[in-house]
């Protein structure tokens, strides 16, 4: 079991979501986050300019079986891509175990294959 976390452009979220659901993943979690990165936006408030390095991003977390890691990463690399600075990152890490609160089951079995 692996955890794949991607920090993507908020505006690319719909594309990523659709492509994820079309692939082997049908469950994932996401939340709004901000990224400090290279791409900057200029803002002005009451005459004071401030270039913010803060970008609105979406943090998407997928937990999946080993065999789907590669395909899931590919989804992010494709659907989240614009080619401009600020596209974001993907991080992969280990998960030891997984439980379903509804059924109480744990282990790989919780991560069902797409029905």
């Amino acid at each position, binding site marked *: 079991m692996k955890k794949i976390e991607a920090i993507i452009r*908020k*505006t690319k979220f*719909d594309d990523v979501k659709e492509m994820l659901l079309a692939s082997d993943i049908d469950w994932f979690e996401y939340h709004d986050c901000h990224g400090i990165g290279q791409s900057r*936006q*200029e*803002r*002005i*408030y009451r005459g004071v*300019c401030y270039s913010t390095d803060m970008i609105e991003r979406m943090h998407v977390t997928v937990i999946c079986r080993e065999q789907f890691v590669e395909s899931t990463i590919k989804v992010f690399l494709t659907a989240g891509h614009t080619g401009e600075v600020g596209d974001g990152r993907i991080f992969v890490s280990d998960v030891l175990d997984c439980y379903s609160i509804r059924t109480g089951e744990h282990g790989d079995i919780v991560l069902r294959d797409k029905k």
Partner: protein
Amino acid sequence: MLFLDTTAAAPVVEEACEHVNGLDTLWVLLGAMLVFWMQPGFALVEAGMTRSKNTANILMKNFCDFMAGSVLYWLVGFSIMYGAGNAFAGWDGFCFIGSDSNVPAEATFIFQTVFCATAATIVSGAMAERTKFSMYLVYSVLISLVIYPIEGHWSWGGGWLSELGFHDFAGSTVVHLCGGALALAGAIVLGPRVGKYDSAGKSRAIPGHSLTLCALGVFTLWVGWFGFNPCSTVAATGYDNAVSMSHVFVTTNMAAAVGGIVALIYTWLVDGKPSLSMVCNGVLAGLVGITAGCDCVSIGASAIIGTIASLAMCLSVNFLDKKCHIDDPVGAVSVHGVAGLLGTIMTGIFCDSSIDGVTDCTIGVQVLGALTVAAFAFVSGLIIFSVIKHTHGLRVEKRIEEEGLDIYEHGEAAYN
């Protein structure tokens, strides 16, 4: 300098003193306040029905409509609309503000100014979330400067429609249909927002960011309409005016209430759930519908007008969105265009001469008037927006649209 030349105060014509009436003036000024108060109403409805990333932009557009309208209608517009002229347009020089009637010239002038600004502001909702701010300003200038004054002259400034006996008491056609037709032209030329229709052409919902703002806006418009319609008697003295303004008040409120109820029932039956956003639109459709005939239809008829206006609006919202794929984020075309058109026509049907002495109002003329104004506004709109589109470009870049107009067009986010 141009500004200083104008002797702004009404010339103290001795005779005028006799018929200018303080009560009437107070009533008209109260009307001007209330119609002005419709500006935040529009701003809130439009802001509420769009996404938070475009809120500063849409608020800004509402400010600009009113500010530009105030200045331009004074410089030129009022002169075109109410100046002596031919059946098509008037003219009486720059900075013309008319002359005293039962109220001082300036009272009439400011009352007309706020009506003009209302017409201008209708369009911003339909073009929300994707229009270049600078290009929107160009449109905003043109409507206050030319389009509204010209078609207004036809019905209210002594033009050809008024001579035919066209009856549009407070502006179902002059204000709302005109705005709605322009909104339609704008929405068509602009095209739908990114993501509004999927590849199969199915419509996707893009919910507004705050129904609270939207609801507050509708209440604001509703109370503003109590100036828009009743104060359009522009007189409050004597038995006839007292009865007339009371009657207009009652029919206006009845059509609004019924309009809201109809939308409630419609969405409950059709979609399975009563929808607040459609009730908001239903109230507005009822108000727009009754505006033309609020003085000359019975209370019962006003309920019918509210029903039909609201029902037509509901159907039209669906039709424009799902069939025509015209993306109108706030439903301006349906609320102001469709309801305004039907309201004007129904005035010809329900008009009751025993109520306000309006005798020469016929369906034929009502249909003619409404369609001509709609056509004029729609074609003007098409021309203006197409010219802009093919020269400077009417629409922001895809990336700006996706990330929000607030940051890129104004450098400010509405919420922090």
